């Protein structure tokens, strides 16, 4: 049995009366590439946000390397509003700000690229090194931690070199072409030294050639940085080619999971994507 890296248990996210993610449980094992797919508005990014601390799920638990990083149950006004299941199963409340989650070795990218636009490529990566550096504001200002600073710079440089971005290190991030911005965003995420990386639609806006290159790129970083990859993606060829396992969300509910072939042949998935003539009741 493979080692469990990330585990979601009964995650429900309800905004007011709207249930965006409904009782979603899943797990990602060490070294796997797992994809989360589903039609637009299925709650995929919301699930990501629940893991990374941007949102606090209404109910459920997230475990990373066996440590509970997120746990919640309906409280206050939500007690009456709650429409999900497993109410009462969880009693603890564990909640971290996104930076604390990143510190626990989860890195992420964003659906609509969020680089530090006005800063250079080098600074973008260097900033991600800030978190793990041993310094404080005084030692950093007065250059007592110059050694640490040099280490950060060297590591950032070698990371840029590995990602073939070194020649662009002094360019302003927003001036890069789209594909390279995606690449930089991944490089920046890698700089936080993660053990698992969450990619939110890494191929969005890429042409077929770039998408094709992305396939080998994701495999390559998994090998080089001993990563586990969990990604949201719409490009089916990419997903089917690269994923070890796939989870399918529709209207917040998990409707299918399994290997690419299993999912591909699941009638429920086909219905969700192509639409199905439903009875008058709905």
């Amino acid at each position, binding site marked *: 049995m493979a080692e469990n890296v990330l585990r979601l248990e009964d995650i429900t996210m309800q905004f007011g009366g709207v249930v965006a993610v409904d009782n979603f449980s899943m797990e990602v094992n060490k070294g796997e590439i797992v994809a989360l797919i589903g039609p637009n508005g299925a709650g995929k990014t919301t699930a990501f*946000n629940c893991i990374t601390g941007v949102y606090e799920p209404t109910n459920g638990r997230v475990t990373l390397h066996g440590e509970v990083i997120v746990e919640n149950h309906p409280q206050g006004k939500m007690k009456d509003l709650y429409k999900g299941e497993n109410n009462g199963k969880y009693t603890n409340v564990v909640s971290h700000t996104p930076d604390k989650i990143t510190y626990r070795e989860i890195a992420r990218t964003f659906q609509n690229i969020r680089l530090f636009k006005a800063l250079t490529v080098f600074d973008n990566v260097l900033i991600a090194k800030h978190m793990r550096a041993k310094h404080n504001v005084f030692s950093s200002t007065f250059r007592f931690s110059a050694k640490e600073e040099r280490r950060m710079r060297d590591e950032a440089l070698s990371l840029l070199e590995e990602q073939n971005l070194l020649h662009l290190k002094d360019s302003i991030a927003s001036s890069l072409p789209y594909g390279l911005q995606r690449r930089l965003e991944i490089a920046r995420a890698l700089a936080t030294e993660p053990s698992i990386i969450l990619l939110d639609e890494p191929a969005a806006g890429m042409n077929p050639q770039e998408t094709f290159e992305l396939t080998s790129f994701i495999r390559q970083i998994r090998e080089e940085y001993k990563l586990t990859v969990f990604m949201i993606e719409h490009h089916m060829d990419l997903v089917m080619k690269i994923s070890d396992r796939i989870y399918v969300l529709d209207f917040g509910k998990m409707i299918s999971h399994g290997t690419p072939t299993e999912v591909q042949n699941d009638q429920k998935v086909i219905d969700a994507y192509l639409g199905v003539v439903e009875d008058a009741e709905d």
Partner: protein
Amino acid sequence: MDFFNTTLPYMLSGISVGGQYALIAIGYTMVYGILRLINFAHADVFMVSALLMVYAVSTYSVMLFLAIPLVVTLTVLLGFTIERVAYKPLRNAPRMSVMVSAIGVSYLLQNLALYITGGLNKNYPTIPWLSDSITVFGAMTKRVTVVTPFLTIALVIVLVMLIQRTKIGTAMRAVAKDFETSQLMGIKINSVISMTFIIGTFLAGIGSILYFTNYPGVTPQAGAMPGLKAFVAAVFGGIGSVPGAVLGGFTIGICESLIKGMDSILVSVGILKEPLELATFSDAFTFVLLIVILVFKPTGLLGEKISDKV
């Protein structure tokens, strides 16, 4: 009875000044609702309006019944011009640039007033009926104190009808909800924004007449404090909401006035033996209220919730 007699005058002046704050606050809240801009110059428009009255009546001896509409018209014109000259060119600039521009206009208006008045305190003309002294429950006050709240409420009702019932009002609500989409829907945003400024400065002009009738004089700095407080009133009530601004205006006016009298009120009830000089904090209290409301309900009492998407 002692308590009632001590409190009443403060309560009265609180309601009155609250109504005046409300009138200024509407200008802030409507502009913020549409442009997301804290219009720092609004307070100075309010001050300039008072100076216009001073010069119209004292220097150029315009008859009062003509001076009032004239001054209000000029005030509106000023508000309209400021928007066209200082804010419109920055429509696509970052929000901070527009705010800085507003601060710049405020600085300019104050310096202009300083130059023209020579920094002297100008006596505000006496407006016959409004300035008359009357007695309310045994407390002496000017008639304006009693008139203000009623006039404020009447104006606000008209304004709310305008926003809810008319075409331009609907356009205003649409622009406040979504600037870009309403532009795409064919709403002429520039005329909507101008209209907002016209309404805002009109009310500030009226507010200025009411406010300065109760105060001895006008200085270039005279607008700053009431302006800031009116803005706090707008935030307190929920920025973007007209009823909220009114609610905020009255709350802040009354609180401020009660704090001015807090020492004598507390002494009269017997809680305090000697005064604590709390009146120093009558201005500061407004800001304490502001920070408290921002921490516990950042959108204000009647404001709508806005969330950003990740």
